[in-house]
């Protein structure tokens, strides 16, 4: 029996797919736009619309963006009380809208802010949520969302469902799905909403400061580059990382690392790739001295071409490569640098 303390849910009352569109300082988070692309696929199978949800203050300039990326509709709240981001107020806003419109699915980008917001929304609606999904599908018969997440350290995939409750909620890390093309000729509906049940703020935002971690490479963030050279523990120190940074520069790419490398302080945490770091999907991933632990593979599996150099022919990374070289990363990298420099000269 369903817990009698919860509202009773008639599944047929719930229709449509929502994407919570996160924004901060006048910028929309890319992870939200990527979810619009996925939501469109799911919506086609269910025969429903994709609605973007935006809450905040002075959103005018941003409102059409979700539509340019594929949403059919934007429901938004423009409210003085939401001029700065307080987690419980933003979350409560989404709850109030969901109670009114009854979507069957709500998707969140699992950014740091998204991970904070989504579980509060789900719980207050007394529904389930699956974190960090790597694949999503729908069953057109039951209209259940098939929420796939790697578990038990990543070697097993769990298919999680929320068969008795609505809406069904899920979060997805940025870059798990590609960004759909932006098309300014797309048209869509803008619906302005007012909130009546916003809780007391009970708090105030005092301000923020950026702290850029020490990052000597001067190269772009790992998510922003089409070529990512990754240092593993096998590069044995900052000298090795420096050599790979040279390679990254010559290739016009950027440098990243495994958790062991960022934990050791050879690279800043913002360059960690994997389950507890960033997800990348570049055209070319080059792993040097990377063993291929599943938690790392998680963050790079979707790369177009995967290359690895490892001295151990049995390293797990070779199960994931298109091209692998068994050997010392340093010798191979130095040879590569030489070849690339020659090529540049020609």
């Amino acid at each position, binding site marked *: 029996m369903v817990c009698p303390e919860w509202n009773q849910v008639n599944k047929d009352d719930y229709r449509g797919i929502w994407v919570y569109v996160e924004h901060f300082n006048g910028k929309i988070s890319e992870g939200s736009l990527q979810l619009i692309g996925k939501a469109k696929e799911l919506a086609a199978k269910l025969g429903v619309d994709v609605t973007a949800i935006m809450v905040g203050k002075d959103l005018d300039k941003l409102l059409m963006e979700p539509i340019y990326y594929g949403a059919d509709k934007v429901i938004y709240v423009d409210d003085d009380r939401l001029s700065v981001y307080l987690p419980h107020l933003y979350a409560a806003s989404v709850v109030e809208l969901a109670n009114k419109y009854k979507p069957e699915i709500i998707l969140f980008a699992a950014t740091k802010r998204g991970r904070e917001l989504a579980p509060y929304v789900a719980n207050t609606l007394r529904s389930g949520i699956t974190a*960090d999904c790597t694949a999503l599908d729908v069953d057109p018969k039951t209209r259940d969302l098939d929420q796939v997440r790697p578990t038990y350290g990543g070697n097993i995939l769990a298919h999680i469902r929320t068969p008795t409750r609505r809406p069904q909620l899920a979060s997805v890390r940025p870059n798990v799905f590609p960004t759909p093309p932006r098309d300014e000729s797309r048209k869509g509906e803008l619906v302005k909403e007012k909130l009546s049940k916003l809780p007391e703020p009970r708090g105030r935002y005092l301000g923020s400061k950026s702290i850029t971690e020490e990052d000597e490479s001067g190269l772009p963030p790992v998510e922003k580059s089409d070529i990512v050279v990754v240092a593993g523990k096998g590069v044995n120190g900052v000298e090795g990382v420096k050599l790979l940074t040279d390679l990254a520069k010559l290739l016009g790419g950027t440098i990243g690392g495994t958790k062991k490398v960022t934990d050791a302080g050879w690279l800043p945490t913002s360059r960690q790739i994997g389950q507890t770091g960033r997800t990348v999907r570049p055209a070319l991933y080059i792993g040097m001295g990377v063993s291929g632990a599943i938690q790392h593979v998680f963050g790079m599996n979707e790369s177009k071409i995967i290359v690895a150099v490892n001295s151990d022919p049995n390293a797990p990374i070779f199960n994931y490569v298109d091209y692998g070289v068994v050997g010392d990363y340093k010798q191979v990298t130095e040879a590569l640098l030489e070849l690339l420099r020659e090529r540049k000269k020609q």
Partner: protein
Amino acid sequence: LTIVVPVKAAVPNITAVRLDPNTHNLVREGVPLMINPYDRNAVELALRIKDRFGGKVVTISMAPPNGKDFLESTIGMGVDEGILITDRVFAGADTLATSHAIAKSIAKLYPNFNLIIMGEETTDSTTAHMPAQVASWLEVPFVYYAIDAEPNIKDGTVRVSRYLEDEGLVEEFIYNMPIIMSVYRNSNPPRDISLNRKIMAKVNGLVKVLTNKELGLNPDCVGLKGSPTIVAKIEDAKPLPRKKQIFQGDPKEGAKWLLENLVKEEVIR
């Protein structure tokens, strides 16, 4: 000042753990439970606040009966008392049902709590759902990724700074207590466990055990029954199809071979 720190008994090396082929559950037999490592950072922040402003720090965990030991080790760090919530009706809980049991226990035992401080996420299931869900049950504000918190006992407020790793941003808030926060996992490195204090915790019975007899939650609203999510199916994660061409031999030849292939693939120009 009353600070409650919910902590989880996590399965240590998750990749080494086996699954029961029939039930899909973790085989926990013979697996020693340990405290979720990031929860020690949460305990640390709580203790730092206590060191400066006084008060009481309590750890609380929903875990199997052998969870008593790791609660005693939090007392070894300086925590005042521990609560173990354990009952078969709580088994099979998803994050909503887990947070339900934790929130209701806190409301019953420590209705006048000022702060609830939690870990950023667990290393064995990594959802980071619980802090916001406990906040939802208790209807109090919440903020994730705290690196520091400074209560003002006089006016009942707390200043929190938190770090958003993906934006490289430190934000500052001031809230009226009570609030709930989770602690950024790379902050507040935990202090050592004093073995003497841990033994003292065992001898003096500082960890109390609570079952649903005392809590009185509706069995339909906890555990597997009170969980909206179900695991419908599990499967082995298969690597995506890859070319898997491997070169073994002279490194210079290897580099040449690589470059040729990458040019052919048009990923290097």
